[in-house]
């Protein structure tokens, strides 16, 4: 009967996760799979809403893990889809930066529901061969010289960035009048836009085929293009940055919670943090990660003093989100 039992055991050790692109990159996921003998099966999501919807579909039984950004952590908790984190099951939990333990984005009712592991800003990415001098602010997107050479993410959260450009103090709390201003600004920008990008792969392709030279994007794209040897530059305009802080959260109904804890522990470890950082270009969240990548790289990624983290307007839940979606559809129609 041994031949019957073997595959059954293997099937019990498949960790399913819904993640942002890069968070289960084979470069470091393979090590985990070899160490534990478990398979990691990941689905990429294009937006937080999609992630939430897919995670919830089927009563929250489809996935063990989710790499939730700050704009859906509370929603996941409210919907009862995630379980409290038992820190005693994580050897590396104490290495998480102090200010990230019990971060307000994943702690509810005094209990941690997620483990912070990565964060970063949304940045301005450009092709230095076509854009000179190097841009310093988002205003370059409105420069007629680059008309039809610009791409923005196809995601309603982009509205928060436009609100920041307009000087709104809280880009996640916008009144209908604020939104009307944002709409006017976006309509002004629309003729400049070649295409709205949906996936990081598509975005890299837009750069490589010469269709665009400027993008509002994740640092992931900088990393991908740089690795491919394509000329690329990245700017983080001060004070005008949105970004995300991502947490691993475990499904309330996860049948593989033990493996999920093992995975989280691995990602918090030195090699795990280094893996995520190298695959995505995002900043890590643990002292072990800082030690692994070295002081110099840690300084580049603002992991030593977290001064950038404090400055970024991190994605949050938006109350009138349906209005945001509606506005976005109007821009896209």
């Amino acid at each position, binding site marked *: 009967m041994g031949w019957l039992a073997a595959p059954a055991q293997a099937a019990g050790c498949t960790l399913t996760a819904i993640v942002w692109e890069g968070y289960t990159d084979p470069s470091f996921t393979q090590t985990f799979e070899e160490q534990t003998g478990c398979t990691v099966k990941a689905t990429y999501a*294009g*937006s937080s*809403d*999609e992630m*939430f*919807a897919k995670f919830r579909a089927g009563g929250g039984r489809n996935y063990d893990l989710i790499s939730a950004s700050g704009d859906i952590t509370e*929603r996941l908790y409210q*919907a009862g889809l995630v379980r409290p984190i038992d820190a005693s099951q994580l050897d590396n939990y104490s290495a998480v930066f102090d200010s990230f333990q019990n971060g307000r984005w994943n702690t509810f009712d005094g209990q941690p529901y997620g483990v912070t592991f990565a964060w970063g800003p949304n940045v301005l990415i450009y092709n230095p061969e076509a854009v000179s001098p190097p841009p310093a602010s988002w205003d370059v997107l409105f420069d007629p010289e680059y008309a*039809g050479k610009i791409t923005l993410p*196809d*995601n*309603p959260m982009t509205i928060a960035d436009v609100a920041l450009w307009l000087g709104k103090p809280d880009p996640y709390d916008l009144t209908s009048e604020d939104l009307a201003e944002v709409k006017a600004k976006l309509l002004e920008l*629309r003729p400049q*836009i*070649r*295409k*709205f990008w*949906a996936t990081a792969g598509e975005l890299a392709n837009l750069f490589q*085929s*010469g*269709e665009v030279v400027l993008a509002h994007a994740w640092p992931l794209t900088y990393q991908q293009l740089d690795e491919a040897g394509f000329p690329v530059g990245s700017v983080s305009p001060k004070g005008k940055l949105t970004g995300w802080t991502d947490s691993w959260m475990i499904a309330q109904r996860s049948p593989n919670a033990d493996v999920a804890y093992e995975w989280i522990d691995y990602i918090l470890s030195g090699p795990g943090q280094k893996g995520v950082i190298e695959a995505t270009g995002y900043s890590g969240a643990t002292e072990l990660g800082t030690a692994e990548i070295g002081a110099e790289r840690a300084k580049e990624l603002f992991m030593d003093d977290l001064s950038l983290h404090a400055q970024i307007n991190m994605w949050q839940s938006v109350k009138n*989100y*349906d209005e945001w*979606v*509606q506005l976005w*559809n*109007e*821009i*896209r*129609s």
Partner: protein
Amino acid sequence: MNTETMSVARMRRRPGLQLGLYGTLLPPLVWMTLLYFVPIALLLIYSFWRLESFEIVQTFSLDNFKTIASNAAYRRVLVRTVAIALGVTVIDAAIALPLGYFITRHGGRYRQLLTLLVILPLWSSYLVRVFAWKIILGYNGVINTVLLSLGILTTPSQAFLYNSFAVTLTFVHVWLPFMILPVITAFEQLPTSLLEASADLNARPWTTFRRIILPLVMPGVLAGSINVFALTMGDFITPSLVGGASDIMLGNVIASQFGVSYNWPLGAAFALVVMAIVFSGLAIVLRRGALETL
């Protein structure tokens, strides 16, 4: 065996035959019910629910349909989608008519081969064909490279890709076989004697085309039209791959409601609107005898 014993034999076999007949009908019926009728019923139910603070509220309301009707942006997408679908249909018909005529009348011994060539693109992935257009129309694409090397352009043009022209062109190409096949079938059924009679009665070619050919191949054209129209109405991949910043179609709106926006009720309502438009198109062409000869 004389006719009398044959009909007796047939009558005796009938009950068993009927049972077998219904028996063979059962599997497809179950299949259709589970995988087609039930999902459509679910879609219908969802479209009358609504979304409130990320929760689907299961009470009857017409909110979604009101939103679709009252929102200028959605109306614009609706009108654009129908316009593109009609445009693609007309262009495909205009290409298929002369092509179908040529293949059936002048194809000779190459007729089979030519028909095969028409179907051949269907053997490659739909995505591959759409991506091929990206390569042809792109900034560093085939057309721009040719125009640059001929000295017609000095810098690559952005006019070819990421706009409604690219969307229409791609649709016209990928759906063309679905128009040509029924048109060829219609031409094959067209008796040559009628064309000869028309010519004998001194009708000019244009008159023959207008009064003899067109009415007789019309059912084929209409059948092809409903194929092309329905396929275009529901598609979201082509506009998202070759369309620009403001060329989304109903398919994209539906995909985003079920995906990024998580508003399944509104998405379901949009899907029903698409179905209603396609079915009314179907009803119109059926009344004009689209499927009678096929």
